[in-house]
């Protein structure tokens, strides 16, 4: 549904996006990950027709962006970075304006506005100027605006930035509950968000696509993936753990005294470790399997690109 070929964007000499190529199909919830200034927002701005690419091609719903931008924009709901809105308007006036621009007829307009106000819980601020709202509410007004016309494609630039944990949860639930045949693209710095809502991850750094796969695959790249971490009540000889078959490495964290056992690739070591503990009667009070650490994978991938 979205086809991007060799997409590039230059600002003067600076290449913000270099030769991006990807396809996104309906049903995919894509997370754009990347350091600040990596080109995530620039890519989104080109996908929404705000910026003109310096090179390459964007086709959405079988239409070329440079020829039928308006037709494409009707299918897209977009929350720009920082959720800009017209501050002097109230959320109700603002949503009314957006609905009119989107061409919703009066009956449907009312119904949709009620629905989105319900979905993002805006009731209490409907008649206050947007300028006077808290950051969380402003963000929710931006979200409401983006989903108002029930778009087939939803592009959200940092949708949970500045929200408290409850509101973040709410936004994630909202994204998960969107119809399953839609395309959702979100950009974020929050790594957990990706595994929480996305079924596809794209890591972009310095304008290049460095990783494009599922969140699980991303996690499995972590050294901590399926590693076993345990803690002992009092110190005792644990050298035997490191010699178990399938254990590649053992690390003891000095401060907390936590022991982490790293498995060889694609090996489950939990059962071996627990057997060993039972046999030796080791005084283990904590034991868990690591999920993989996204921050570390993220650092590896994005820093690797510089070297």
């Amino acid at each position, binding site marked *: 549904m979205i086809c991007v070929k060799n997409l590039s964007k230059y600002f003067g000499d600076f290449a913000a996006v270099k030769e991006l190529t990807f396809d996104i199909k309906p049903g995919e919830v894509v997370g754009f990950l990347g350091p600040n200034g990596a080109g995530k927002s620039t890519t989104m*701005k080109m996908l929404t027709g*705000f*910026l003109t690419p310096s090179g390459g091609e964007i086709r959405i719903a079988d239409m070329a962006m440079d020829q039928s931008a*308006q037709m494409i924009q009707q299918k897209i709901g977009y929350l720009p970075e920082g959720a*800009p*809105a017209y501050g*002097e308007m109230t959320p109700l*006036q603002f949503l009314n304006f957006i609905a009119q*621009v989107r061409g919703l007829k009066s009956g449907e307009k009312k119904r949709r506005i009620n629905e989105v106000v319900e979905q993002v819980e805006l009731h209490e601020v409907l008649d206050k100027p947007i300028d006077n709202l808290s950051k969380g509410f402003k963000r929710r007004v931006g979200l409401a*605006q983006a989903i108002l016309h029930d778009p087939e494609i939803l592009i959200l630039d940092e949708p949970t930035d500045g929200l408290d944990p409850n509101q973040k949860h709410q936004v994630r639930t909202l994204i998960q509950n969107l119809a399953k045949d839609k395309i959702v693209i979100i950009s974020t710095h929050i790594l957990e968000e990706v595994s929480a809502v996305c079924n596809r991850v794209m890591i972009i750094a310095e304008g290049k696509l460095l990783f494009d796969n599922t969140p699980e695959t991303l996690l499995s790249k972590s050294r901590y993936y399926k590693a076993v971490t345990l803690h002992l009540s009092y110190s005792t000889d644990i050298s035997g753990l490191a010699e178990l078959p399938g254990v590649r490495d053992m690390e003891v964290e000095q401060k907390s005294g936590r022991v982490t056992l790293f498995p060889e690739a694609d090996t489950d070591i939990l059962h071996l470790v627990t057997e060993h503990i039972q046999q030796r009667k080791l005084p283990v009070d904590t034991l868990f399997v690591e999920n993989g650490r996204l921050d570390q994978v993220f650092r590896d991938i994005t820093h690797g690109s510089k070297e």
Partner: protein
Amino acid sequence: MINVLFKRELASFFATPVAYVFITIFLILSGVFAFFIGGLYERGQADLLPFFNFHPWLYLFLVPAIAMRTWSEERKNGSIELLMTLPITTFQAMMGKFLAAWAVLGLSLLLTFPLWITVNYLGNPDNGVIVAAYIGSWLMAGAFLAIGICMSALTKNQVIAFILAIVVSFLFVVSGSGIVLDAFKGWAPSFVIDTIASFSFLTHYESLAKGVIALNDVMYFLLLMALWLYGGLLIIEQKKAD
């Protein structure tokens, strides 16, 4: 679609104090100019010429003030990104903004009606002339506005937009004034002087203010509006994101 954008822009003028302050200042200043400097009473003539004669100078400062926010503010707070990713064309956005601000200017002019009533009470003015002068003044205001909007499209800084608009408008006003034309007289051939004078708001407004609606004066202002708005349109399309 222009109609939806127009309504939003117009509402935003009145949701903030901008329109009220503008209209108030306009009414006070135009009154002050007409009575104290133009000598509306002292002339002893039942017309509004002293009132209309000061409009170019009044617009020179007031119209850039109302035009400066049109695009600069959108750029500053990022809402331009929202606006330009809605399924509308830049042309529609531009027209919505222009027509809304022009409507505020028109409303300001309409609210000077007590002056009209006054001269009608005091004597028998030629009301056709006055209507024509009002139309002429509104057309000229539109030209000032188009310049201001184009300058506003250039920058996200409203102060810069304001100053640029005044400078450019000033050039268009003074190119017909005696000082500038005198500087050319004596050495430049007369067609040069005529050309310079023909660029001036003053030259074209003069006859309009006297009630003569000549096609070339009307066309001049309409063309100027179209050109400056088109310039602004190109600027926005070129550098939306800066």
